[in-house]
């Protein structure tokens, strides 16, 4: 088994796609230990899941929102609401991301679509690039916390936890996350004397609200739909896509079929990358289960660390370290099936555990060298990567504090799902 892990790590650092490293070690194991006939069945079984179907639709709806210009309206609404606080556009940036996260399930869609508008606006107002890029990247992490959320769908599918409960469990952490970032921006703005906008009139607020209202309705449709039993999370994702499509064509009238092809292309490529990774890791999951690796790790944790809080801290430390070098989705897929049973055995609610893990992974997308969100922001904002990597550091601190809060106070996550029972 040691040679299994050793060859896997060698392949991982040799720039081979993660999917293939996983597949190759697994088939070598199956060829030498028997059971290779199962490989084909396992790889299909990995994606043959109805819950996972929500993933392509949430990617689709996020891309549609960006293509139809709904993001512009959200940005304008956010500007009317919080633009007058010291730090001006910094707060607008964070607040707009929070609103947009209710429509998109990934940090990429947020950083890529809304981020472009945000950075442009901040640049025109004379904010320095590092500051605006760092705010854009760090505020985009609420995307997967606020429902809908792609990582939480995947977590729910592999850990057999209700996706609906996970979704509303993410709401308070998302708000806390935005709030902590706003405090930081306020402090920085006071120190550097950034300019602010005059307070907008009530009428301006109302106009921008009405303009953005149909888009702001999306998260409510999702949550209400799931909990009233009208549709499953997967269907909610499809309905969200349809809603975005209809809004773009009939209400905002900004959508063309030329855009549709690009949207489909982007959607499919993200879908396939995540889907193929899920498929590959399900083969590896079979190998690990046969070698009883999860049980061995569980036994280790339970004999050495009996305390749930210590366990959570240890897991989070491990994930933070892994998150700096490995892509986050891969970590979730690899680590969750092993750790969830242990967490449950130690008396940690799987919903709490899921939100904490996803939050942790979102810090992972901000930490160089493998910070996916930083890559996206550097690309769309045309900001040099080293500058961004340096400016992001102060923004990780408030997020880290929120993570610790979530670990020590499970009620922050579990309060809202508890109400729904």
């Amino acid at each position: 088994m040691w040679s299994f892990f050793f060859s896997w790590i060698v392949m991982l650092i040799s720039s081979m796609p993660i999917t293939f490293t996983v597949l190759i070690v697994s088939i070598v194991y199956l060829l030498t230990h028997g059971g290779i006939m199962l490989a084909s069945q396992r790889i299909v079984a990995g994606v043959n899941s109805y819950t996972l179907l929500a993933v392509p639709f949430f990617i689709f709806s996020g891309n549609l929102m960006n293509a139809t210009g709904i993001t512009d309206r959200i940005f304008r609404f956010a500007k009317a609401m919080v633009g007058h606080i010291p730090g001006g556009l910094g707060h607008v940036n964070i607040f707009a991301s929070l609103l947009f996260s209710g429509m998109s399930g990934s940090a990429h869609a947020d950083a890529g679509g809304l981020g472009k508008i945000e950075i442009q606006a901040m640049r025109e107002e004379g904010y320095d690039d590092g500051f605006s890029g760092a705010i854009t990247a760090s505020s985009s992490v609420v995307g997967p916390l606020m429902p809908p959320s792609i990582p939480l769908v995947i977590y729910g599918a592999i850990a057999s936890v209700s996706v609906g409960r996970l979704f509303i469990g993410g709401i308070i952490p998302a708000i806390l996350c935005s709030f902590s970032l706003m405090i930081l921006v306020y402090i920085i703005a006071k120190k550097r004397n950034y300019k602010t906008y005059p307070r907008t009139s009530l009428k301006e607020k109302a106009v921008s609200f009405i303009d953005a209202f149909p888009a702001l309705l999306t998260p409510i449709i999702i949550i209400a739909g799931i909990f009233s039993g009208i549709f499953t999370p997967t269907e909610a994702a499809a309905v969200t896509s349809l809603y975005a499509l209809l809004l773009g064509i009939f209400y905002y009238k900004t959508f063309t079929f030329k855009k549709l092809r690009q949207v489909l292309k982007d959607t499919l490529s993200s879908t396939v990358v995540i889907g193929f990774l899920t498929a590959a890791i399900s083969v590896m999951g079979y190998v690990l289960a046969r070698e009883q690796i999860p049980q061995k790790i569980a036994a280790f944790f339970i004999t050495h660390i009996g305390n749930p809080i210590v366990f959570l801290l240890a897991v989070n430390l491990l994930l933070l370290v892994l998150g700096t070098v490995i892509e986050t989705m891969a970590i979730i897929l690899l680590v969750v099936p092993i750790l969830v049973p242990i967490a449950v055995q130690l008396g940690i609610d799987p919903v709490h555990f899921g939100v904490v893990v996803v939050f942790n992974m979102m810090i992972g997308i901000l930490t160089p060298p493998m910070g996916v969100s930083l890559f996206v922001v550097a690309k769309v904002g045309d900001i040099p990567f080293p500058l961004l990597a340096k400016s992001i550091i102060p923004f990780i601190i408030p997020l880290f504090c929120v993570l610790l809060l979530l670990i020590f106070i499970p009620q922050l996550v579990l309060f809202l799902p508890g109400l729904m029972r």
Partner: protein
Amino acid sequence: MKFVRFYKKTLILEEAVEIACFILLFLTVLIQIFFRLKPIAMNIDYAPVWTEELSRWLYVYIVFFGSSLCIHNGEHIGIDIFVEKLPYKLKKIVLSLVDIIMMACCVVFIIYGLKNMVFAARQYPMTLPFSNAYLYVVVPIGFFLMLIRLLFIFIMKFLPESKTSEGNE
């Protein structure tokens, strides 16, 4: 080059299959919800049972047909920060090795994917009128397409290289 042009055309075909599957998937899920809505369910006595299974199958198709396209575009994520630091020659050897191992992996999946079809042909899903072979056929097809893409990238890596070195001499 004629060969390259033909190759590019096959990419469009793949994309078309994927987009068709996705649109079909979208419609399938919407049909499923549509017939459940109260005003419709009260008047039309029809409950589609096939939608759930069909949508899962379509998702599998999308993933396996699309992954070769992603190989072509280099979208599968890997960790390249270590390899980037290697000297040029060594880096090239490592990257070629990686390609060869990946191709070998594809070959294994094609062989055992085909063997698995024999078993799958005897199993039937709950609601669809086809045997499971139609689902598992994506494994050999998908990996075959990936193999072609990998081979093409592998050859392309050496082609322009040999030309420029000839020009220098």
